[in-house]
């Protein structure tokens, strides 16, 4: 069966493929990966207990910490002579992690990206400028291979040097741009400022590897005159391309012949009903060098149960709203600091987010929600009326983004306590109060 027909295969046949692949992945991992075997033994499970995807929830979770504990190659299921490439990510905290790929894994990865690219209209006639970083980061090489597989002309410029990016885009006639959304936004603003839009041939953008909003998509699309599509992935699971949008731009298809997504309650680990919001968990079905079983991504999102008008049977996921480690529940509503940052950034109109702190408390059974925002040049005005207006804009922006009200207080610059250079974002005094 070729991979393109798998995108449209009926759910029943897809499940049969997943069952067979899951059984095989569990068996291989049990035999070859100590960490997984020990976890199975702890709960008294053997590979024969797994008959198909209906048994998925019986399997133990795996975590980012495992990659650190077994650094560098301890979780690989293939001898190193079969590992064709490694990638690594440092992350902002702790030791870096390493992942590996066999030749088949690299082929599968390229195939996932090529599927998405083809769907959004990339062909062998296109010039794909890859402005993701090349190196240990998975972005550059991952997208590169997908574009090559389609037969497009790849411009492997990597990230950085904006003037050179724009000149290359013009001179080489780039029609597709792949980068992080924030970099695309920056390029778009520069191109607009320099009045170079007319010299561009760009028509498609594929952006991912960091959170972005629909507003940002709209702005990038308008400024560059392109269609912008979202791509999702993480190096622990593979890299960009685990999921990608189709031309309908309404959720990203997870390539379910290679990956099974689950949404769980991050606190209890229970699988949530289809459509509910929770932590995204992935199990790989075809990866050889570094298979993952129920890997906790810490990303919070939901799956979309409805069928997609594009005809693909593979389930779609919404763009992650944030990380489970950061999620706050205030008056029953999920709130992510990233949403607050987005509002502050928009109001300040600057590239740097103003420093802020969330203070939660409970009075008479109700959560109180205060946000201290450090005054900055962007917010300051000579008269009280203008400052009050800024305060109001922030408050209203928060209400419409979060769905609940917060009290905003403008405070002196540098008055929010920092520890080790980083401001403590949340002070939660609700513990034990009713």
């Amino acid at each position, binding site marked *: 069966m070729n991979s393109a027909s798998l995108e449209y295969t009926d759910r029943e046949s897809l499940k049969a493929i997943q069952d067979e692949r899951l059984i095989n992945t569990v068996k291989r991992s049990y035999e070859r990966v100590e960490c997984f075997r020990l976890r199975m033994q702890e709960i008294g499970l053997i590979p024969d207990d797994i008959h198909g995807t209906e048994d998925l929830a019986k399997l133990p979770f795996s975590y980012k910490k495992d990659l650190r504990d077994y650094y560098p190659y301890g979780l690989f299921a293939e001898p190193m002579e079969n590992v064709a490439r490694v990638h690594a990510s440092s992350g902002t905290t702790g030791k870096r992690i390493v992942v590996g790929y066999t030749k088949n894994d690299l082929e599968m990865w390229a195939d996932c990206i090529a599927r998405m690219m083809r769907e959004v209209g990339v062909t062998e006639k296109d010039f794909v400028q890859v402005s993701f970083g090349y190196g240990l980061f998975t972005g550059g090489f991952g997208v590169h291979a997908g574009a090559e597989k389609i037969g497009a002309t790849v411009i492997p410029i990597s990230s950085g040097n904006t003037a050179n990016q724009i000149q290359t885009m013009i001179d080489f006639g780039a029609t597709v741009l792949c980068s992080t959304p924030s970099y695309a936004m920056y390029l778009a603003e520069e191109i607009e400022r320099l009045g170079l839009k007319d010299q561009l041939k760009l028509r498609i953008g594929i952006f991912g590897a960091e959170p972005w909003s629909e507003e940002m998509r709209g702005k990038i699309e308008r400024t560059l005159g392109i269609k912008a599509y979202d791509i999702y992935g993480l190096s622990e699971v593979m890299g960009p391309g685990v999921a990608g949008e189709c031309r309908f731009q309404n959720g990203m298809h997870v390539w379910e012949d290679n990956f099974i997504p689950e949404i769980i309650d991050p606190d209890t680990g229970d699988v949530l009903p289809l459509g509910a919001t929770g932590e995204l968990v992935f199990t790989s079905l075809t990866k050889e060098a570094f298979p993952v079983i129920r890997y906790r991504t810490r990303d919070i999102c939901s799956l979309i149960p409805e069928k997609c008008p594009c005809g693909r049977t593979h389930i779609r996921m919404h763009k992650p709203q944030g990380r489970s480690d950061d999620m706050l529940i205030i008056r029953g509503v999920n709130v992510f600091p990233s949403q607050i940052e987005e509002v502050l950034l928009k109001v300040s109109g600057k590239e740097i987010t103003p420093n802020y702190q969330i203070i939660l408390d409970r009075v008479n059974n109700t959560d109180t929600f205060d946000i201290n925002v450090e*005054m*900055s*040049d962007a917010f*300051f005005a*000579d*008269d*009280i*009326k203008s*400052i*009050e207006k800024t305060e109001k804009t922030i408050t209203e922006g928060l209400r419409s983004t979060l769905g609940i009200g917060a009290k905003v*207080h*403008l*405070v*002196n*610059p*540098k*008055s929010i306590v920092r520890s080790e250079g980083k401001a403590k974002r949340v002070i939660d005094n609700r513990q034990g109060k009713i």
Partner: protein
Amino acid sequence: MIIKQLSVFLENKQGRLEAAVEILASAGIDISALSLADTADYGVLRLLVDQPALAEEKLSESGIIVRQTRVNAVAMKDVPGGAYGILRLLSGTGISIEYMYACVGRVSGEALMVLRTDDTEKAEKLLEDNGFNNVSPQDIYRI
């Protein structure tokens, strides 16, 4: 005369005002006028000083949000109705006053009126044309 006023953001917390004034005092900067507009949470402190550039630098260095604002300064006879004449002059010209405050000038018997309008240049021209061009730089700055 158009003069440079410093506007400073102050959170309404004990010690914030003293801290700002202290910074200026230790730099040898003389404050000739001071006015505070505030809400429950914060205020804007407006200052006339003898060395505005130095004052701005010192305050910024200490992490205080400060901005130079151009305002109109007019000397008034410290007699009843002094302010009324200026207000009457501006009203009906399309210039709107954002805020104003009075302080004691260096010339005895005279008060200094500080005006912030939405069109500083236009207001200044109007004041000059009507004989209110009566503040000398020495009254404000160290020269």
